[in-house]
């Protein structure tokens, strides 16, 4: 398989993971206007929880769903106990979530030590599949499929259900949504937990390719930030497109300009910020 094809497959895989991570971030940011800097920590926590669960004999997929739920519970606690006290104070929220991410990172270091932990690829998905004469690593294909399924599920939830309609109403105009009888604070908790679950789940299924190590949170968070700034907050389509753009930029940037990989990653974001501050797919504020 040629280098470019490998890079493209890796980019799509990373894009899928980033979509799961950033869809939650984007929803939280879009609905609640909370720049949740603990989102990278949710990703890492999910992966760490899963390693412990797998070590206790759970199979990979059960562990993935369960760690997602644990992370969601943690997210719910954070939202109820801390973020709820700071409504509308965006910069206070930035600082609190940043502080929390430091705390989580240190607790993880204490509990799971500083050594990287490998997550084994689930047994059915090891090896490669031949497609049109080219061998693709099966697990990476699976991640892309999972991302697509999650994207479809999220889209259905947001676009076709009553809950989704309420969330969209909240994103568009929270005070108005409140006036027509939508319990926005409750929605906030639901969305925050959903976002945390997605991040935790993404952390687990990313485990076999990335493995888990201290600093994973600080590595993923800027990527999610870039995705949301590129795609625009609160936009599912924006997250999807942004994730794949970042996936490709990151992998190809690292292969072609290894010394400037970060510059390649952040430059498009700066250009978008300067030219179109609301992001590629979001409607302008106001």
């Amino acid at each position: 398989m040629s280098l470019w094809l490998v890079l493209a497959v890796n980019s799509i895989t990373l894009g899928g993971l980033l979509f799961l991570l950033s869809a939650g971030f984007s929803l939280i940011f879009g609905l609640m206007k909370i720049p949740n800097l603990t989102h990278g920590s949710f990703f890492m926590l999910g992966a760490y929880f899963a390693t412990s669960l797998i070590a206790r004999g759970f199979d990979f997929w059960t562990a993935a769903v369960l760690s997602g739920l644990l992370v969601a519970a943690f997210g719910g606690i954070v939202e109820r106990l801390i973020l709820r006290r700071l409504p509308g104070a965006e910069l206070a929220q930035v600082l609190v979530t940043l502080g929390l991410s430091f705390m989580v990172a240190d607790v993880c270091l204490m509990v799971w030590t500083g050594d990287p932990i490998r997550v084994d690829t689930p047994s059915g998905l090891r090896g490669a599949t031949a497609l049109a004469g080219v061998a693709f690593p099966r697990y990476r294909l699976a991640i892309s499929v999972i991302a697509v399924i999650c994207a479809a599920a999220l889209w259905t939830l947001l676009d076709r259900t009553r809950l989704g309609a309420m969330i969209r109403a909240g994103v568009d105009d929270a005070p108005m949504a409140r006036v027509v009888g939508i319990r926005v604070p409750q929605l906030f908790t639901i969305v925050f937990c959903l976002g945390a679950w997605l991040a935790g789940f993404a952390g687990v299924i990313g485990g076999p390719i990335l493995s888990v190590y201290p600093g994973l949170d600080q590595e993923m968070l800027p990527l999610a930030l870039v995705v949301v700034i590129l795609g625009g907050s609160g936009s599912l389509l924006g997250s999807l497109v942004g994730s794949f753009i970042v996936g490709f930029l990151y992998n190809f940037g690292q292969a072609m300009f290894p010394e400037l990989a970060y510059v390649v990653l952040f430059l498009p974001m700066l250009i978008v910020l300067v030219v179109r501050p609301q992001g590629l797919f979001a409607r302008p504020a106001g």
Partner: protein
Amino acid sequence: MNRIALAAALVILAAVPWWVSGTYYVNIASQILLYAIFALGVNVLAGYAGLVSLGHAGLFGIAAYAAGKILSTGSGHGHVVVAIGAIAVALLASAVFAVLALRGTGLGFVMITVALGQIVWGVAYRWISLTNGDNGITITGRPSPFGFSLASPRSFYWATFVVFLAAVVSMAVFVGSPFGASLRGTRDQPRRMTALGYHVWMIRFLAFLFSGFWSGVAGLLYLYYNQFVSPQAVALTASAEALLMVISGGTATLLGPIVGATLVVVIKNVASAYIERWNFVLGAIFVVIVVFMPEGLVPGVARLTRRAVAALRPHAAVPVPAPGVAAGGEPVRGPSPPLNGSERGR
């Protein structure tokens, strides 16, 4: 009264190397002053301009890297050239940061500064031929400006103290100047300032340069203090630490960043001596201060003292508006003005 207190504080600070025993503590005092300079620089934006930057470690680090780079080329440049070069590079970087970051206010500003800081970090970490990557840049020896060697902890402390004094004086002048007043105006009422004919963008831009200048000076001192700089100095954590110093001490006060720098450096050293969990402590302080003491330690303690004094004097217990409370009452709950400055920044 205030002048006597100020003079006393100056004498006590200048005499630190005599009444503090052991080079370890003198070094900690140097660190405190160095970070106080940095925090004062960050405070110009976070406090007086209402623009919270999470990328200032980038400016701090750029100065340190630039100086380290000029020194390590071994072309025998004097330290004056090195200092001027490093500050010039830091100012140039500040100008670039400012042009990009001032596209947004409030959250947009935070996000852009995070991104810029991460780019600097990425370059420091990855561009190995330029920055030596994770191994960082090591320099040999501290400079001897005007024949006064800074090699010993004591002499380095005094040199830092002189720079620190310059920073404090420049801040005092800045706060009292019409420029400082107009900057606070752009923080509180940007639209009104525009209507009054002020060039809001230019005021913020100049404030950014002023802030970047002192961050660069602190970065230069950092390089000389450690004789080493690595990507850690430009990481997001470093920017967050600087912001914590400002916010814990109290934003938009002259004393706040100094108190905050003292607090953070002392806790950091104490915490690393007794417990390994410095990052946990850092995060916890962040959370506690933002949730429970949003106005910062200095105004917070001042508020509590006023209350205590009022409670001790039964006659005065009936509301006597203390100075500073007049404008809109005491901020008991909810963030301090600079923290939600984004609301007005739009």
